[in-house]
């Protein structure tokens, strides 16, 4: 199936009008020696029915987990049916970037509303229309801070997601910036004295996550104070966005930028993507931030309307002097996030509380198992770290029952031997937890 509507007569007629004899002549600018006879090793076309059967077979090679107890940057949440129905409207999903505002008021207004929700959730003044994911949002914020402050070192908490630290590292290396880790304290949080001691006058920004990778909340206010005292900026990330239903927003704690993964807001796990990077900032940085911005204005008759604004920051206008190279973002995922949050409204708090209760219950049950120990004392959200006699054996046992267990921390954190990072969202039921404990006994 090739989706081309051309009949033989159409093609002949069009070739005639285009003044060429054969289709092949249209490709005469390609030097003969580089003309391909056929695509090597390419399977033949399939009918729709055959394509569907093929993809079904491939999907069936996956093993469907009965339950997922891993979070670690991607979170299994219930998605209300209304989200899929609305995001599935082709007027949204088959549109391009809204460069022609008069034809794009729908997505522009939806993005404006999304930006407003993100600013409110994070306690910041402004938010952009989305970045690729939480990690690249953090990396772009890091690069931006170095440029703003004219300093070339960034400090990143070791309690930040290991893959995020690597992405920030890759962006820093490409720009020639130095990236240094800040150790976490025994409570599983940053210690403000350590942070203070590590900041010198070359440090552009301190980067942390709260909740952090271990599920612990950071004392953002204290760290922001330490950073400010040494003239450094603070980039505050978050892991599971639903935590913001109860957690004090970093914007109220003195953060200059808040970045994070927005997948939890109405986007499926999708084996890692597409997700969306939340990027929020203080007003004074509005003209320096990366990414698209929908702005409210009026038309020539004075009616309110929306446009992409401050485009002189962007690559299609400013080229090598742009604040970022980003062009496509994750608009449809941001639309899903906006719909999800509008659907929940104040119930986001209820949902966040439920996540806390589930994680507490799972943790209390696991700690009753012989040899299992709590690791960090800092308050947490829906993830926590425990040690057990044999982390690998635990996960293997759970996998046999179709359960994806905790995230093994030792490969990323050799200092956390036999430690597992567990996550329990609202999807984990009491009977599941009770059964898990029976399996592990």
């Amino acid at each position, binding site marked *: 199936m*090739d*989706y081309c*509507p051309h009949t033989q007569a*159409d093609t002949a007629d*069009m070739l005639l009008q285009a003044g060429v004899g054969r*289709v092949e002549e249209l490709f005469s*600018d390609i030097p003969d020696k580089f*003309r391909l006879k056929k*695509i090597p090793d390419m399977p033949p*076309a399939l009918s729709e029915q055959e*394509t569907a059967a093929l993809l079904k077979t491939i*999907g*069936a090679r*996956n093993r*469907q987990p009965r339950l997922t107890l*891993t979070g670690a940057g991607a979170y299994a949440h219930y998605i209300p049916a*209304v989200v899929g129905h609305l995001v599935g*409207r082709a*007027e949204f*999903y*088959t*549109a*391009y*970037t*809204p460069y022609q505002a*008069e034809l*794009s*008021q729908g*997505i522009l207004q939806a993005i*404006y509303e999304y*930006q407003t929700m993100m600013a409110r959730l994070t306690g910041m003044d402004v938010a952009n229309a*989305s970045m*690729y994911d939480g990690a690249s949002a953090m990396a772009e914020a890091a690069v931006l801070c170095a440029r703003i402050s004219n300093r070339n070192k960034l400090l990143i908490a070791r309690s930040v997601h290991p893959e995020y630290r690597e992405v920030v590292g890759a962006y820093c290396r*490409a720009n020639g910036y130095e990236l240094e880790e800040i150790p976490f304290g025994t409570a599983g949080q940053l210690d403000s004295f350590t942070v203070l001691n590590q900041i010198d006058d070359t440090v552009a920004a301190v980067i942390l996550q709260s909740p952090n990778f271990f599920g612990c909340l950071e004392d953002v206010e204290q760290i922001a104070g330490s950073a400010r005292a040494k003239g450094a900026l603070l980039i505050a990330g978050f892991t599971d966005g639903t935590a913001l239903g*109860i957690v004090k927003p970093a914007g109220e704690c003195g953060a200059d930028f808040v970045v994070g993964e927005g997948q939890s807001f109405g986007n499926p796990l*999708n*084996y890692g*993507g*597409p997700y969306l990077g939340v990027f929020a900032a203080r007003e004074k940085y*509005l003209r320096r931030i990366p990414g698209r911005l929908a*702005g409210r*204005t009026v*038309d*020539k008759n004075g009616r309110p309307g929306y446009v992409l*604004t401050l*485009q002189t920051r962007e690559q*299609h206008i400013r*080229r090598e002097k742009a604040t970022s*190279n*980003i062009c*496509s*973002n994750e*608009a*449809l*995922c941001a639309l899903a996030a906006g719909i999800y949050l*509008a659907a929940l*409204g104040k119930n986001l708090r209820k949902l966040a509380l439920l996540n*806390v209760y589930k994680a507490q*219950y799972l943790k209390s049950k696991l700690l009753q198992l012989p040899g299992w120990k709590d690791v960090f004392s800092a*308050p947490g959200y829906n993830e926590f770290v425990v040690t057990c006699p044999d982390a690998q054996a635990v996960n293997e046992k759970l996998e046999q029952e179709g359960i994806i267990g905790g995230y093994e921390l030792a490969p990323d954190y050799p200092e956390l031997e036999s430690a597992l990072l567990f996550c329990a969202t609202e999807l984990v039921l009491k009977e599941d937890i009770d059964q898990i404990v029976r399996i592990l006994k």
Partner: protein
Amino acid sequence: MELIFEKSKTGRCAADVPRSDVPEIALETLIDAKYLRDDLDLPEVSEIDLVRHYTNLSRRNFGVDMGFYPLGSCTMKYNPKVNETLAAQPEFTSLHPYAPDSFAQGNLQLLHTMQRLLGNIFGMAEFTLQPAAGAHGELTGVMMIKKYFEHKGEKRRLILIPDTAHGTNPASGALCGFETVTLRSNAEGGVDLDHLAELMTEDVAALMLTNPNTLGLFERNIEKVAQLVHEKGGLLYGDGANANAFLGKTRPGDLGFDVIQLNLHKTFSTPHGGGGPGSGPVGVSAKLVDFLPIPRIVRKGQEFHWSENFPLTIGRVRAFYGNFSVIVKAYAYIRSLGAEGLIRASEMAVLNANYIKERLKAHFELPYDRVCMHECVFSGRRQVAESGVHTTDMAKRLIDFGYHPPTIYFPLIVPEAIMIEPTETESKETLDRFCNAMIAIAREAKDNPQKVKDAPHYTPVSRLDEVLAARKPDVCWKKP
């Protein structure tokens, strides 16, 4: 239209939360109050309000499913429905990225096969599927170029970029600390070889070339271009934004490209989503394979697994493995079309563009009058001179005829540019109606220019005040 916040009424909600089946613990006993928020300012609406709000917003939006969308360099082809259905199967959507490889064999097989198929189509040794979009792919490619020279112990500061290039090219170069130098085009719209020979020194890391370029023209001297770059030890980077022009006709790997990035959301039909998500795979020649981002898929017999053990890698460019569900759609598309379908797609895309070019060239100035590839670029200069009607006016007037306007004012080297990319999924009848509309507008520009300048006439809003939007930015709503 009212904002969702303006429709909010305390006490309403559209999504409920189950009652807790585990003990509820007073929050303050678990988390000190200093960590907790006081207020949560989200809209409170009922489900029907929510549905009507977003449904009505969607009616104020224009997508490919509603009409012809000839946006140049964006390849707005039809997005087959079956691919949406297949990518939404729970087998694909519900798996956690850290699921053990033993749970994800289907996903890994799909990704691995996709890498191989892209390698075959484009003639590259290896592909990474990680980048989230085209510009992200460019960044990944340029990072690899940087690492390649570092590994060779060479310091090269410059990247050459033709004056026809997308803005993402210089921005990606700059984001990796390179200085970008503009390379001139010649009179027939290709690379000025003398200028290239002059600029190409051992301080140049790469030439970033879009082929066919943004004029829709294939670089006839590609062999010479590659030779000039390689002679000085430089690398040839290919921006694959226009790959829909040559599927099965030629391969960038054979043409001498060392790195290319693709846009699955252009060439391989995955929807643009109102601005994303996309997917920007990067293919490399053998000499750059070691620098690919991690993790990479390794095959052992019939089993696949992720590996991070590649010491020369540039590292990670994002968390996890890429925009997986976008890749599933593109994979289904490639398998549906097969070898013959991909070739036919490019042939019909190029035929459609040439047909439009021939039908319109009597009515609009055509700066480069030669066979074009998948898109053609006109100039609105004649209309400006004759009646003061600008390209933007004609673009807005097209909206009244039911079309999305072409890309305008790009490429930068064509004044008042009108860049039309019809794609292969449009019929002759659609192209004829569109051309008739363009011709009618050209006539109207002469007879009744004010009508064109005042367009659009039938949209929910008329032209918006962009100066006000930039001068007094309002990007987040505040309660009055």
